[in-house]
Each structure stands twice: as structure tokens, then as C-alpha cells.
């Protein structure tokens, strides 16, 4: 396809500038985002089974709830019922609770002993999954603007630029797309190979990327967008105001769990009931959020649809379970959410999104490499800007991955040392992230790329090693590693370790035997650690 040369040049500039300004933020967002596909599994993996609620049979759950709300003040405010295969588990917030991410929440779990007496146990609520999710949404940028996270707004702008980068990338590819799309030319130099793989990944996953870019813009700016829309609607309010209740019900009147289940099954017949979340029970505005899921439905939440019921009257307040018969727009809007969350095809879909998320991270990393290659000095010293960008690319990309890996590795040790769990995760991530960037500036991109990839390999291998160790150390809280979803984290850690090791070896080969006039080359004369005689000369 022929495109005018000035159009190509214009969009080449658009692509370069939007790409280089956003790639590192988007790398973090995509890597963490890929992991959030398995947020519930990661949280389950990170929490010792001895510190989770023990399910009781569904016949006994009502009796347990009754006892809990009679004896426990906090349970009277609200509690959670998780439905699992062999029954239902009761828990409530002994400290904290409510919307948003908090690091010092404590959960109380209730179960029945042999004499049918309630036993209550407390544990910190594990926020590892939520922290990874927070990293995904903010790229780790802290701070608030009003009630919105600063990081979310910055990523919203980055997502808009990323939309521009996608379209401009396609435009500049159009003249050669038919001829070269599937050509991965390895013999034409590393640069060409990076470019070919960058283009292939970009084009093949284009619909996914366009959708993620657009939805991320909406997620970040929906409040101002609604603000503008309210001008369009004039006097008509955008949303119907919620009824405020006036009656405070007696908790003894709380219907049985089976009654809720019957009501919900009628409302959403093809759904599984995962969880009930009762809140503000002792106020005039009590609420029950029922989390429902279905493998083959487009769901509005990350992992669920939600129906809000009045816990005493069973009246539906709000429901994200929709059908096209009620409202044409509802399923369409739900699909936007679902297409971002990848929740419409059970675990197959999640694995696809996981892989596409990682490929997205690759897209941004390879984009930066191409930027660096383009600015390479063919002779002599590389420019300062190139060196800085190379160090930043290596530092941020390796740093975010290493930070997450160290936080996951730290999980079991934090329990063993009995320190503040969620603060521990946070400190692990940010310390490692900062140190990694510091190291890559200190040693330069070429050395640090190799060392950091080895560090990533080691940390990833240490995750399954810790799991093995946890079986031996008696004072460790117990994990039931027998469950396949739990073992998957270890398996993936080994897969990642292998990938990082391969990358480290490739980076090493590039540094010592690759192009001499490159930011990735390590000058043997200045590297005293290596004897020149041991390095074969490049022919």
C-alpha cells in the first residue's frame, strides 16, 4: 500500500514521541496487569491456609452467623461469607474494612469446633494481589489528586498517547505490511530482528491493544467525562439518586443464606455464587453485595458480576447482571469492562490475556531498544541521552519485575518473621525498584542488563525453593501446596527463571561478541574482572 512520504514522516515522529514518553510506564502497567489476571490465585497462594477461614457446611453457616453477630461487635457491622466447594466460610473485619486499599486490615475468621462452639481467629488480610493491581493501575506512582490516584491519571494520559502510538505505528507500517509482516529477519542484524518482532507483536495483538488503550483512558477520566456529559443532559440528573433508608433492622431478622441463594438464582440462573459481603448492617442503609461469576459471560467486575440486595427486604438495589431484553446498552457497556478484564472465557481467556499482557510489555521494551538503536553513534562514544535512556530502560523494566518477584518471594518470610505483612510487600517492591534503577545508572546499561537478568533468575528460582523450605521449617505457617492453582505460581516462577536466564546469556553474548559501537557492548579492556585472553575475538 502506497502512503505519501510526508504522511509517513509525520506519523514516524508521532510514533517515536508518544512511544518513548510512555513506554516505561506502560511496561510496568502491562507486566503487573498480566499478573492481575490471576489475582485471586496469587492472593490464595500468598495466604497460609492456616490463616484463612475454615468452611462449615451450608446447613451450619446460619447458626455460626447467628452466634457471631450475637457475640462479636465487629461482625454486627458486617461480615463476609465465601462459598467454596465444601461449604461456606465466615469472616469479618476485626480492623478496617470498607472500600479501597488499606494495608493494616485484620480479618477475623469463625469456625465451629467439635462441640459446635464458635472459635474466632484473627489474621492480617493479605493484600499482595491488590497491591499488584494497584501497581497495574498506577505504575507505582503514589499520591492522590482529589479522590483519584495520581498514578491512574498519569497512566490515563499515557494510555491516550499509547492509542496515538498504535495508530501511527500501523500507518508507518502500511507500505511494507504485506511483504514483511511475518518476516523475522535474523541474518540482517539484531536491529532488524527487534524491529520485525516489534511489528509482528504490535499488528497481531492490535485489537487487544486498541481496546486496552481506550478503556484505560475511560477508567482514568470517567469522572471528568461524566462532568462534561452532565452539561449535555442539562437539568436531568445522569444517575437516579439512591434511596436512603430510614429503618434500622434487628439483626435477628436476617434471612438465612439459603433464602438469598434462592433469590439470586432466580435473578441470575446461570451464575455461580462466590461471595456475600454484608456491610452497614446496623445502620439504616444495610447492604449485601453478592459476587457472582459465570465462565461464559462477559462480567463487569474484574472477576465477577455483582448484585446489591437489601439484606432484610431482599430488594435489588443495583445489578451488573444484564440481558439485552431489558436494555440494549447494558450488555454493550459491560462488554467494554469485560474486554479489558479478560473474564469472558474462564481460565483459557485469562491465560490468553496473561500472554498478551506480557507481549505488550515486550512491545514497549523492544520499542525503546529500537529508539536506542536509531540514535546509536556508529563510531566512538555514545551520546549521553542514549546512555541515560538505556540505563533507565533497563532499570525500570528489570526493576519493576524484580520488585514484584522479591515481594512474592518475601511473602512467606514476612509471615515467618511476623512483621507487618502488607507494608513488607510495599517496602520490598519500592526498595528493589529504586536500587535496581540506581544500579543500572551506576554500572551502565550493558553491565546492569546482564546482572539484573541473573538477579531475576535467582529470585524467581528462590520462590519455589522457599515453598520447599516451608515444608521443612516447622514454625512456618502451613500452606497447602497440594492445590494445583497454588503450585502454578511455583511452576510459572521456574518458567520465568528460565526465560530470564536465556535473556541473560543473550545479553552477555551481545555485550562481549556483538557490535562494538553499541550501548550494549562491554569494552573488554576496561572490564578488569575479565581476562582478555579468555574472550574469543570477534571475527
Amino acid at each position, binding site marked *: 500500500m502506497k502512503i505519501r512520504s*510526508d504522511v509517513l514522516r509525520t506519523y514516524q515522529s508521532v510514533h517515536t514521541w508518544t512511544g518513548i514518553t510512555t513506554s516505561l510506564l506502560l511496561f510496568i502497567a502491562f507486566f503487573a496487569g498480566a499478573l492481575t489476571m490471576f489475582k485471586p490465585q496469587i492472593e490464595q497462594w500468598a495466604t497460609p491456609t492456616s490463616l484463612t477461614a475454615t468452611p462449615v457446611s451450608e446447613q451450619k453457616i446460619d447458626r455460626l452467623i447467628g452466634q457471631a453477630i450475637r457475640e462479636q461487635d465487629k461482625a454486627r457491622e458486617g461480615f463476609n461469607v465465601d462459598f467454596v466447594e465444601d461449604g461456606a466460610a465466615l469472616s469479618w473485619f476485626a480492623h478496617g474494612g470498607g472500600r479501597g486499599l488499606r494495608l493494616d486490615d485484620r480479618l477475623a475468621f469463625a469456625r465451629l469446633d467439635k462441640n459446635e462452639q464458635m472459635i474466632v481467629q484473627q489474621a492480617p488480610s493479605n493484600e499482595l494481589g491488590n497491591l499488584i493491581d494497584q501497581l497495574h493501575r498506577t505504575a507505582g506512582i503514589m499520591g492522590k489528586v482529589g479522590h483519584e490516584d495520581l498514578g491512574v491519571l498519569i497512566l490515563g494520559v499515557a494510555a491516550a498517547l499509547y492509542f496515538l502510538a498504535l495508530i501511527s505505528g500501523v500507518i508507518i507500517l502500511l507500505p511494507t505490511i504485506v511483504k514483511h509482516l511475518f518476516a523475522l529477519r535474523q541474518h540482517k542484524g539484531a536491529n532488524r530482528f527487534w524491529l520485525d518482532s516489534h511489528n509482528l507483536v504490535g499488528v497481531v495483538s492490535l485489537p487487544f491493544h486498541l481496546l486496552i488503550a481506550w478503556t484505560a483512558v475511560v477508567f482514568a477520566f470517567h469522572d471528568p467525562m461524566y462532568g462534561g*456529559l452532565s452539561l449535555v443532559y442539562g437539568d436531568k440528573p445522569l444517575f437516579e439518586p439512591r434511596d436512603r433508608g430510614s429503618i434500622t433492622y434487628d439483626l435477628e431478622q436476617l434471612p438465612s443464606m439459603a433464602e438469598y441463594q434462592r433469590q439470586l438464582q432466580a435473578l441470575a440462573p446461570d451464575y455461580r455464587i462466590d461471595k456475600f459481603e454484608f456491610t452497614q448492617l446496623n445502620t439504616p442503609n444495610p447492604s449485601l453485595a453478592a459476587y457472582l461469576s459465570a465462565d461464559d459471560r462477559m462480567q463487569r467486575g474484574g472477576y465477577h458480576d455483582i448484585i446489591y440486595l437489601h439484606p432484610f427486604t431482599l430488594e435489588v438495589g443495583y445489578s451488573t447482571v444484564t440481558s439485552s431484553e431489558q436494555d440494549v446498552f447494558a450488555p454493550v457497556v459491560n462488554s467494554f469492562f469485560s474486554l479489558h478484564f479478560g473474564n469472558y472465557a474462564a481460565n483459557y481467556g485469562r491465560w490468553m490475556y496473561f500472554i498478551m499482557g506480557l507481549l505488550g510489555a515486550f512491545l514497549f521494551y523492544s520499542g525503546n531498544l529500537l529508539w536506542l538503536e536509531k540514535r546509536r553513534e556508529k563510531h566512538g562514544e555514545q551520546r549521553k541521552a542514549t546512555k541515560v535512556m538505556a540505563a533507565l530502560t533497563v532499570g525500570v523494566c528489570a526493576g519493576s519485575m524484580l520488585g514484584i518477584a522479591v515481594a512474592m518471594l518475601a511473602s512467606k518470610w514476612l509471615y515467618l518473621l511476623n512483621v507487618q505483612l502488607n507494608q513488607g510487600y510495599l517496602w520490598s517492591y519500592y526498595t528493589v525498584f529504586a536500587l535496581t534503577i540506581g544500579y543500572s545508572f551506576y554500572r551502565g546499561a550493558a553491565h546492569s542488563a546482564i546482572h539484573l537478568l541473573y538477579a531475576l533468575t535467582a529470585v524467581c528460582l528462590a520462590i519455589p525453593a522457599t515453598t520447599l523450605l516451608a515444608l521443612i521449617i516447622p514454625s512456618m505457617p502451613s500452606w497447602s501446596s497440594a492445590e494445583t492453582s497454588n503450585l502454578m505460581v511455583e511452576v510459572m516462577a521456574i518458567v520465568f527463571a528460565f526465560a530470564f536466564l536465556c535473556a541473560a546469556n543473550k545479553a552477555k553474548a551481545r555485550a562481549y561478541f556483538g557490535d562494538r559501537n553499541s550501548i550494549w557492548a562491554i569494552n573488554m579492556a576496561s572490564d578488569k574482572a575479565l581476562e582478555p585472553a579468555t574472550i574469543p575475538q570477534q571475527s
Partner: protein
Amino acid sequence: MARLLLQDKIQPHWWCKTFIGIFMGLLLSYGLIALFAWFGPDGLETGMKVQFNMWMISAIWLPILTLIYLFKTARSAFIYLLFANVCVYFLFVSLWWLQ
């Protein structure tokens, strides 16, 4: 392809085009959504149509923002978007009067 003369080539005008894309593009998106909200199917119904409209604002805005650089100069980008805006808002006001 014949070589383009300098005056036929796209002029960069990066900042101007970007600002025109952001502000006049957004105005145009809201105009189109206003038409759809008031006179499209289901009219000014609250409910999921409100959310749908909010989503569509950026779905129109982002492509405008991307394709704004195809205009040869910032001036022509401004004139075309101004024209489009005037058309859309004129149509909106006319339909509103007729109602």
C-alpha cells in the same frame, strides 16, 4: 509517485495541531454524543445509555486526536474542526428548537 513540493507537504505544527485536537476534538465528540443522547434511540433515558454515552466520547475523541496530524497545516485543522463543530451544534440546536 511525484515528489511533493514543499508547500504541498504536511507541515508539522505539532503543538497547535495537538491543542486543536484536544479541545476542538473533545468539543466535537461531546456535540456528537449530545445529538445521540437527546435524539438517538431511547432519548434522554437515564440508565445504561448514560454510561454508553460516556464511553463513546473518548471513542470519538481518540481517533480525532490521532488523525489531526493529517491536516496540512494547523490552520486547516482549525478551520475543518470549527466547521464540523458548527455543523454539529447547529443541528443540535435546530433539533432542540423543533422539539
